């Protein structure tokens, strides 16, 4: 390859990169800039606002009928509790599947694989009516409760995460925990003292991904939650863009930015973990 053609090739690549970067970030630059724009309507809005203001954010947070802070808190609460259960339950399930020999193991592995490829959300009609029925007997997991939503989240995240953690535990030398058990440790101690510290990076990755997906979930939250004081921020954002899409852009965009910020920060703080987790999980399969 001649030097000129190499330079030419690079220039093309950088141009391509520039176009893509614009595609990737312009929508968000625009939203952020609109949220700081004093102009109330989009008609007068430019990419770079003439006057900057935080008034939109103040209006959003002080608006009592919108309940935005409550929605954010609901989202954090539901996601945090879900992540806790997803991580604990999948870890101990995966340990058992990796380290115990027992009857029915093959069937259970098969079941998990099938559940993993089957999109359970298809059954939304049944999930809705089921929650309604549960609610009559156990009020805290009925419709319009966070308990019910968490149950669906945790159960839905089980299959994929159990498979990933199990594959990871399988890759740890069996001798490590076996020798501990020979010396009189219980399985619980072997899991907690030996295996868990090794899989901790994986657990962190799973936890973060689970947080991002439960926080960002719209389908199930929208299906189960109805009350203005119960909905998560994704459902809230959807509802209030439906209602005031044309009227008050400032508040809408401010809400959008605030709703996105927590997970974006979380992602960029833990980027290395997540990217490694994603690629190693994929490449190993």
């Amino acid at each position, binding site marked *: 390859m001649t030097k000129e053609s190499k330079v030419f090739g690079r220039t093309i690549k950088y141009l391509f990169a520039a176009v893509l970067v614009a595609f990737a970030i312009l929508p968000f630059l625009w939203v952020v800039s609109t949220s700081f724009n004093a102009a109330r309507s989009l008609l007068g809005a430019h990419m770079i606002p003439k006057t900057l203001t935080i008034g939109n954010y103040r209006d959003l947070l002080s608006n009592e009928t919108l309940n935005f802070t409550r929605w954010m808190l609901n989202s954090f609460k539901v996601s945090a509790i879900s992540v806790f259960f997803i991580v604990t339950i999948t870890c101990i399930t995966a340990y058992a599947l990796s380290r115990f020999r027992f009857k029915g193991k093959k069937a259970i592995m098969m*079941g998990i694989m099938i559940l993993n490829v089957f999109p*359970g959300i298809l059954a939304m009609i049944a999930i809705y009516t089921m929650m309604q029925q549960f609610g009559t007997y156990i009020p805290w997991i009925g419709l319009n409760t966070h308990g019910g939503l968490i149950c669906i989240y945790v159960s839905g995240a089980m299959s994929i995460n*159990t498979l990933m953690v199990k594959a990871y535990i399988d890759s740890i030398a069996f001798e490590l925990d076996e020798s501990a058990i020979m010396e009189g440790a219980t399985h619980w101690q072997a899991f907690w003292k030996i295996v868990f510290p090794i899989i901790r990076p994986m657990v962190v990755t799973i936890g973060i991904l689970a947080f*991002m997906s439960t926080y960002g979930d719209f389908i199930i939250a929208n299906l189960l939650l109805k009350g203005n004081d119960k909905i998560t921020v994704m459902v809230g954002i959807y509802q209030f863009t439906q209602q005031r899409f044309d009227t008050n852009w400032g508040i809408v965009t401010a809400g959008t930015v605030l709703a996105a910020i927590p997970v974006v920060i979380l992602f960029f703080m833990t980027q290395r973990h997540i990217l490694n987790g994603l690629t190693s999980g*994929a490449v190993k*399969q």
Partner: protein
Amino acid sequence: MNRFLRLFYVGVFVFLGSFLMFRLIRDGFYPLAVFVGACVVFGTLVFLRKALTPYRWMAVGIALAVLFTIYPIVYTVFLSFTNMSGGHLLTKQQAIQRILEQKYIPEDAITYSWSAYKNPAGEYLLLVFDADGNGFVARPGKALEPKGPLEEPPAELDGYAMIDMVEAVQRIDEIGKIEFGAAPEALTIQSLGEAAVSKPAFAYDEKTDTFSDVVSGTTYRVNRGTYVSDAGEGLSPGFMVNIGLGNYTRFLGNDGYRKPILEIILWNIAFAFFSVLFSFALGLTIAIAFENLPGKRVIRSLLIIPYPIPVLVSIMVWRALLNERMGLVTSGLSSLFGSSPHFFTEVGWTRFAIVLINVYLSYPYFYILSSGALKSIPKELYEAADIDGAGPLVTLRSITLPMLLRILGPLLIASFSFNFNNFTLVWGFNAGLPAMADTIVPMGHSDLLISFIYRLGFNTANAADYGFSAAITVMLFILVSLMVFFQTINTRAMKETA
């Protein structure tokens, strides 16, 4: 764990589980009762038998998956054979209960005038007067206490304070629901001036499974989930019954459903296919093109920005960008070309926008995956190709692509199946619109099957039709399973030949 303590826990568990099961059976929720029962038996066995120790570790996970993932799938199939819908939401047991609660006031009933009293705890009682001016105190669930003739109702009575007319008017709905007095002679208020003993309006005969009107004697018999009189008058509420293949024949046997659903299915497949194809192609192109480019790290972190942003948020932003009147993209296009496509009302443009947004949402994921997978392709393969004089296109076609597909195949399938049911995107962007013309139930041109089902179940002006939606869901189950099955076989075969 202490043996007795464990027995105690198991005992409590069995007690609570059986109690729940008993109530489910009483109210006619048989499928749920079976699943709860299975979980109770499973839990008990696992915690009592030593041989099942490994299952103790998995008990919670299995129970959750069974109740909240597997049960809904089974229950969907069950529902698809019933007429569960707006007027038929309850089980038969519940419906009978509700009908028995309906009251009427017999013509010879004694009527009273009343004053309501309320205590600080928010409980009510009534002081009622019969036509002769005799007063009675009526408390919920207790027999009337005669107070003898009274001139005026006192302002206070046993720690209850009388509520004035204004408050009584405001709370009349609340108070009207309460039955004062003991069961057969219970009083309910009928109006501001009147309270009376009401009686059940219908009597149920268990042997013949019929209701009869207490006053007129009309008999109501079961007919497809409703008690109906010979004159054709039905009692409300109805209940759900098995209607066999009714829901299936309703849309398979009807051109009015079949044609639009076929259109939805075709668009659904095309949408999932092109979404995966384009986002994978873009992600892979980026991964290959920028692999050795100086400044790659900066470009990379800018390009994956859409990845962490919650999908719904991005969709809302795109909705704003493409907004008819004031969106940045539409107004930009208008000023460039004089007019702009209508991304929310023209079928082709709506679909185009949806695929475009999906590429925006998913290419970072494929970019991350592809660049990881590229690293795992052995370098020797490329060196060998280089020695053989293969150009970049040939290496791409005969080394990079086959190797990548082998590694990423399962993830591509997963992504296809995810996008096949990408409710959030389609509903968030345009709720499945623009609407199709002249359909029996509302359908949209950008609807996926799942958003169509959602609208049918929850978003129609007419009554929610759960049984019918469930039947379409079952067809969707079969369709998705078949596709995943064949694609898995395909990638297996590809792996073996590669």
